[in-house]
């Protein structure tokens, strides 16, 4: 088994095919989308492939050290949606192919008009454990 991160963000990815903001959807379409996401996670729990998921609030700031005895410097907030990390799901699956298959399903979540969003997701493998037998 190997762990993968399915990251939903808007940094450098091409726009999704069905790219209409959620508050412009029909209310039923919002509900359908929320159900799809929840059912997807529930299904991975039953297949034994789910690890965790988190969603991030869009508010945030850049912070860095500014030298001894000084408070950290903050910058922002940058509300630019193109820089936004919205959230992620971590899965533990048999193969890279399976991770890609699942990311494809997640990207098919319904959006405006009930049609799939075709949203881009980044799939990233975690570093694995050091196998005991590989010394």
């Amino acid at each position, binding site marked *: 088994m190997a762990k993968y991160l399915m990251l939903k963000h808007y940094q450098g990815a091409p726009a999704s095919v069905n790219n209409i903001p959620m*508050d412009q959807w*029909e*209310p039923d379409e*919002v509900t359908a989308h*929320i159900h799809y996401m*929840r059912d997807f996670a529930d299904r991975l729990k039953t297949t034994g492939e789910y690890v965790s998921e988190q*969603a991030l*609030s869009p*508010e945030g700031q850049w912070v860095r050290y500014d030298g001894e005895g000084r408070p950290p410097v903050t910058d922002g907030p940058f509300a630019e949606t193109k820089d936004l990390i919205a959230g992620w799901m971590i899965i533990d699956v048999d193969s890279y192919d399976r991770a890609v298959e699942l990311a494809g399903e997640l990207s098919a979540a319904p959006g405006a008009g009930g049609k799939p969003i075709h949203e881009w997701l980044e799939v990233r493998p975690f570093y694995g454990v050091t196998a005991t037998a590989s010394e």
Partner: protein
Amino acid sequence: MNDTLVRELVPQVIGVLVRRGADFATAEDAVQEALVEAVRAWPEDPPRDPKAWLVTVGWRKFLDAVRSDASRRQREELVEAEPAPGPVHDVDDTLQLYFLCAHPSLSPAAAVALTLRAVGGLTTRQIAEAYLVPEATMAQRISRAKRSLNGVRFDEPGDVGTVVRVLYLVFNEGYSGDVDLSAEAIRVTRQLAQLTDHPEVTGLLALMLLVHARRPARLDASGALVPLAEQDRTRWDTVLITEGVGILQLALARDQLGEFQAQAAIAALHADARRAADTDWVQIVEWYDELVALTASPVARLNRAVAVGEADGARAGLADLAELDPALPRYDAVAAYLHERAGNTATAAERYAAAARVAPNIPERDHLTRQAARLNARLRS
């Protein structure tokens, strides 16, 4: 094994150990270990007297701990000094535990964790699950909290005000995982109400019962939030409402108003209305006036603006809102609601979308997004 019974015994058993001469921090650890052992052993072999069992095992764990880091002589002195367990100081000792666990020197997170363990009788694992942190993190938070209480005398006079604020924090966490923190907070507040006769303790208990009564109606079948005005009120728990109203009336009769009694009075007025349209908003505004006078809380003023919007019309509510800081949590959501009632659909839709972006949790975010979508759909048609 009856979990609730065991949890109620935990503070009493800690009290016995402390009375026998154990220090609070070590006694609390020892009882936690005894509790974990009880969870393992009791289903197969339930004891005749659970409290005596916990005292015996807890005391043994305490002696083990002392043996490992103190002189044998000290241990013998403690064994010599062991008095018979008795009911004499039980009530006082348990109340002292509440004060200690909510000590003003502790951060809210530390006080909450320690209260749930030493007073609520939850295991570290359960508390960690409820707050979605690793068990080792929660264990560390609790032991740091206890270390910072080292210099505090067990019988130091305490303040009920700090205790009720900690319990209210626990209540508001709701439930995640297998621990229902709202139910735990109610249980522990009930225990506290038996130990002390403070109107804010009963006020808090009434508030919790009245809010908890609405829980079956708060989410629809798909898990989406249902706002108060749209809840199916036949699903409210009338037993809890009756109990909450009764407790509140006793507290108010004592004429020492506090913020929790005022909040409970508002909850009771909602509970009174069989339909949302029957709500006595004029009286609710009066109670918010009391609450604002008591706390000067900006959140109370925000909620008051909603009530004014219902009692005197949306424009009056918006006028009140204009005096508040737009950075307040849920300010946009309140503005959106009032603008919709005032007929400003486009503004309301924008404010709902803005509110969704700063929502404090996912169910609220989804609810606010749906509201924005609903108004935008109306604007298109």
